[in-house]
């Protein structure tokens, strides 16, 4: 039985403190090295500048939507705890088997999260639920989505090809994309294996999953990402979740590699020191 603790008495203080400390747009630190800011003066583009046409290039970090503050819960603006997907019997049975760590329910000793226990790739859309930036690189026939977590890259074909009808199963699927208009880029992805979770809470998907991402460039500094998941085996109806991002032109993606350090972290959690020796 998963329990959720609500402490309404401190909600006001929480919201106030959260808005003051978590989401302020303070200037980034100076002089950080790889994985950090590229030295020099902060270079935030003006928030009011109009969005360039058919251009998503840059480094994007999840943040609240423009003009709104509030806590992220499990790192999407559409909280999967409050707005869970409508699951099929199969999907619900799989979800009940999940023992998540990121929701705060299980320790590293107890969790069966495939990312934390096996270093499996996060899959899609889970890769967005990890609070790390991603970078968009556009070329004439491909758009590359590069994620700091866990150093994954997705190749989105933009040469007009159709989605494969019988794709091989992959961790991150096979993707095609197209510009719907000057500011909306739509990516469709199929061909997943069943080894990943949809999110960090353990919602399941099958190999019938189809993910449709719509990247909307709100203005030069902001991006909205709506993700629709369709999976007749796991989801009773499509599930849509929304993320918001801000441009971080002064950032470079850093290095992350799931490795023994990750898998040994359960020892560190218990006070051990063997993770790097």
């Amino acid at each position, binding site marked *: 039985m998963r329990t959720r603790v609500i402490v309404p008495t401190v909600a006001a*203080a*929480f919201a106030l*403190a*959260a808005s003051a400390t978590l989401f*302020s747009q303070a200037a*980034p630190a100076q*002089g950080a090295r790889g994985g950090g*800011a590229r030295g020099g003066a902060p270079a935030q583009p003006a928030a009011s500048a109009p969005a360039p046409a058919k251009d998503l290039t840059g480094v994007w970090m999840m943040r609240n939507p423009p003009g709104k503050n509030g806590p992220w819960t499990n790192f999407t603006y559409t909280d999967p705890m409050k707005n869970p997907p409508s699951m099929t019997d199969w999907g619900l049975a799989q979800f009940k088997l999940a023992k998540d760590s990121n929701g705060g329910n299980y*320790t*590293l000793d107890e969790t069966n999260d495939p990312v934390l226990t096996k270093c499996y790739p996060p899959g899609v859309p889970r890769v967005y639920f990890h609070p790390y930036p991603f970078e968009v690189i556009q070329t004439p026939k491909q758009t590359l989505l590069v994620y700091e977590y866990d150093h994954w890259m997705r190749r989105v074909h933009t040469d007009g090809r159709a989605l494969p009808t019988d794709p091989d199963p992959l961790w991150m699927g096979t993707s095609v994309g197209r510009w719907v208009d000057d500011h909306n880029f739509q990516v469709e992805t199929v061909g997943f294996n069943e080894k990943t979770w949809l999110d960090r809470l353990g919602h399941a998907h099958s190999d019938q999953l189809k993910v449709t991402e719509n990247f909307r460039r709100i203005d030069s500094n902001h991006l909205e990402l709506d993700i629709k998941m369709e999976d007749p085996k796991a989801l009773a109806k499509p599930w849509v979740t929304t993320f918001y991002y801000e441009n971080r032109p002064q950032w470079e993606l850093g290095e992350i590699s799931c490795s023994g350090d990750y898998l040994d972290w359960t020892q560190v959690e218990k006070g051990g020191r063997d993770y790097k020796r």
Partner: protein
Amino acid sequence: MARNLILMLGLIAVFALGARPALAHHGGAAFDQTKMQTLSGTVTQLDFVNPHVVVWFDVQNPDGTTTKWSGWLTAPNKLQRAGWTKHTLNPGDHVTISGNQQKNGSPVLQIRTVAGPDGKNLPTFEQ
């Protein structure tokens, strides 16, 4: 009165900090999220590693013994973007660290705030 004020400020801090993605990779189920500990000690090592930066520090107990504590921060990439390097804390530095202790009683903290040798809190997240 003053004690209540301190308690209230503590609660605000706990819940405000609880809202942030404290541990970007791992959850906090192993740590007692209802209690904050504040410790002062001397840094013995800073491990600037994935998935979490770890501060090792010695704390003198009232009976004269020393306990070797460790504390987790977020990922090194995030701390770098907040201005940290592997030299931000060095052996011998005096630190004051607040956080949530391991539920099993081990001297391990999920760090919420860390004040460096100058007494000022260091950033624990990127903006």
